């Protein structure tokens, strides 16, 4: 069984990947780490994403071990520089 999550990429990550968002299938019960690993396994440019990027799940910063569910919005957050 797999579920679909919506990944979002911003700023330098968006430039790197040439895309702002991507729907990704992950195994049920997969963690943020699992998602990152599966993306990086696609080869370049995905392999250039950090191994442990800051990530927000459904607009809240999440640990690498956070579990994903169907329809979750997973944003890859480069170092922030507001203000």
């Amino acid at each position, binding site marked *: 069984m797999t579920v679909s999550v919506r990944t*979002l990429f*911003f*700023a*330098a990550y968006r*430039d790197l990947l040439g895309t702002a968002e991507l729907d990704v299938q992950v195994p049920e019960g997969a963690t943020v780490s699992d998602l990152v690993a599966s993306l990086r396994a696609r080869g370049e440019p995905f392999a250039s994403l950090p191994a442990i990027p*800051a990530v*927000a799940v459904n*607009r809240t*910063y*999440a*640990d690498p071990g*956070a579990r994903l569910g169907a329809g979750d919005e997973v*944003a890859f*957050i*480069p*170092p*922030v*520089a*507001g*203000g």
Partner: protein
Amino acid sequence: MIHADVVDGPIAPAEVLARVGSDRDGAALLFVGVVRDHDGGRAVEGMRYDAYREMAVEVLEAIAEEAGERAGSDRVAVVHRVGELQVGDVSVAIAVSTPHRAESFDAARYVIEQIKLRLPVWKKEHYVDGQSAWKDGCVPVADGPGRTP
């Protein structure tokens, strides 16, 4: 009366200040962040601010609420601009009012420091020499509110 927003157009700092204040407040503070003409020794002519907008609004609201709790005041307003800005343009305005001055200083400082630590906003600096680069920033942490460095 907590107000937090992310906007595309120019910010009028006086309007942000006008959102705070009450008869019981003896102090009001307005902090304004502005695009400056240099950074790290390089001449800058402008800046593009990108945001994870839906989240940025939520984080800005959370920061303003936290600042208000610290200050014992619900008179906190913060507005952050995104898009293409030129030197001299206001990128962020923060206003707080409190009965006594120390709390206004502390709360406004808290808001700007937390913005730097947690707000999902990025800026690409446009240098006078024609180059552009994403500015280095802070890696937000998952365990609740960020910490002032």
